[in-house]
């Protein structure tokens, strides 16, 4: 479980670099267009790819850091043991199947984008899409794993208090 925590953190570091790159791309495009009257063909693609990839990549980290907002005023009224049990069940039986299934589709999408050489549908630069989809599917897979870890921890806590 520690390994998965570390994986989530490592992906967040990658996402952090993407934030800085994103700032760089924006500035580069504004300068190219406004100062040199020579806009790039690729800045808009980089913008959405970095923006999209960075939030998916940090989703697992956000879960580890309890950053995904929940409304817990009702849950707070329950006894600790029951609360952990419910949380674990929701994570394991409700969230996990959904995210696992979506991760599976994402991975297949990355593979088929690679095999078919898919490119962006509207851009003039028409970048290949498989790197973007690969990053997205890594982020989603890490999130699914982190959900599993969260559920296991919840169940462990519920059991400990019981003992």
């Amino acid at each position, binding site marked *: 479980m520690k390994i998965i925590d570390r994986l989530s953190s490592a992906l*967040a570091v990658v*996402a*952090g670099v993407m*934030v*800085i790159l*994103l*700032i760089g*791309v*924006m*500035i580069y*495009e*504004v300068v190219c267009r*406004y100062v040199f009257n020579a806009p790039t063909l690729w800045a*808009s693609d980089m*913008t*959405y*790819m*970095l*923006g*999209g*990839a*960075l*939030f*998916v990549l*940090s*989703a697992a*980290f*956000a*879960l580890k*850091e309890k*950053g*995904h*907002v*929940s*409304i*817990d*005023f*009702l*849950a707070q009224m329950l006894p600790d043991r029951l*609360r952990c049990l*419910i*949380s674990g069940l*929701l*994570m394991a039986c*409700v*969230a996990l*199947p*959904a*995210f696992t*299934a*979506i991760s*599976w*589709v*994402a991975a297949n*999408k990355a593979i088929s984008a690679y095999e078919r050489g898919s490119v962006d549908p509207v851009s003039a630069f028409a970048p290949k899409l498989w790197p*973007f989809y690969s990053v*997205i599917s890594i982020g*989603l897979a890490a999130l699914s794993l982190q*959900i599993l870890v969260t559920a296991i921890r919840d169940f462990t806590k519920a059991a400990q208090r019981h003992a």
Partner: protein
Amino acid sequence: MHDPLMAGLMFPALFALILLGLPVSFSLIATAFGFALLSFGDIAPNQLFRFLDSVASNPTYAAIPLFVFMGAMLERSGIAVRLFDAMRLWLGRLPGGLALAAISMCAIFAAGTGIVGAVEVMVGMMAIPAMQKYRYSNDLIAGTICAGGSLGTMIPPSIVVVVYATQAQVSIGDMFAAILLPSLLMVAFFLGYALLRCAVRPQDGPPLAAEELAIPLNEKLRITAVSLLPALALVFAVVGSIMAGIAAPTEAAGVGALGTILLTLLYGELKASVLWMATRATLVITAMVMLIVVGGTMFTSIFQANGGRQLIQGFLDAMNLTPNQTILVILLIIMLLGFVLDWISIVLICVPIYDPLLRAAGIDPIWFGVLAIVAIQTSYLTPPMAPSLFYLRSIAPPDMTYRQMAFGVMPFVLCQLLVLLVVFLLPGTATWLTSFVGF
């Protein structure tokens, strides 16, 4: 193949998950997943991934990490607190000076972005520590930040207004112009409330102490030059670059983020630890906000595919209302949907229902558009379930309770309803400026 009953059941299912404590974004996604399985079978995950993909591929959302990063950097580097200290010196005699400053700052940045959550989180990160430091009451802080942050969608340019105009088939420029006066009115009401409340209850927003008032003018000017002006220059770089056509709204966020790094460098606060802490906060908050957007998009898609629109239409038909009553009921439905759905989803679902009614009844679609946007805005803020409260939770200090937040926003909700009433009674507030739109 429509099954409006199933569409209707999605809401109780969603509320149940949220109230049991599953994160809001997970609840949206899991509900969409469950109902997609029922209506699409084993290709449901494809359907859901497609909408995650479309959100992840939308460049306008790239503004969110950039604005959040701005707020986080200014907060972690200590610039935000210095900025608010300086503003406080000037506004100190005014009751609730910092609340006024926070609302004004929201209003200015609202002109820079229309992305839900971005302004709220950015200004919130900067203003909450400063306001707490000077012992402002938690509910006033919460209300100020949620209400101020929600202005981003109102004050032009705003992506929501563009989406609304496109869906309602009205002029984008006219819609921008029409929303301007009502949004300024809303800012005025917000400011008025904060001022009045702190005048009546000074303990909720304490004024300057006597020794602070005694600070000599040249010292005040020095603090202003050092702490206030550079930050203001940053604000104008962001908003000004949009107004001057130098940068698109999304790019302006990048200009602001770079400006923040430079500013931090200028103050000698640029350390690896500051940069990492700011980036870390950016990532956690961006992931949280964006996953809610993703969940909302998935939820809306499945709701619509199951006949959500037919559900609302059928409900309206069954009530057998006059066109005017129908429109009022639709405003109510908009507010209800706003409990969980994002802005754009509501616009996409509701406008096609009432657009033909408006046109048949000869009602000005621009005027009604302003009413609808204010209504959505209000639902965005109204507890118990409100996106603005979800976003505030992600940056709220531990001693700020959900109860304080929920009560704190209520007076601001009343301000918004007041704006709704004014626009309803005096359509000129919306239509007057549209006659000036032109190149």
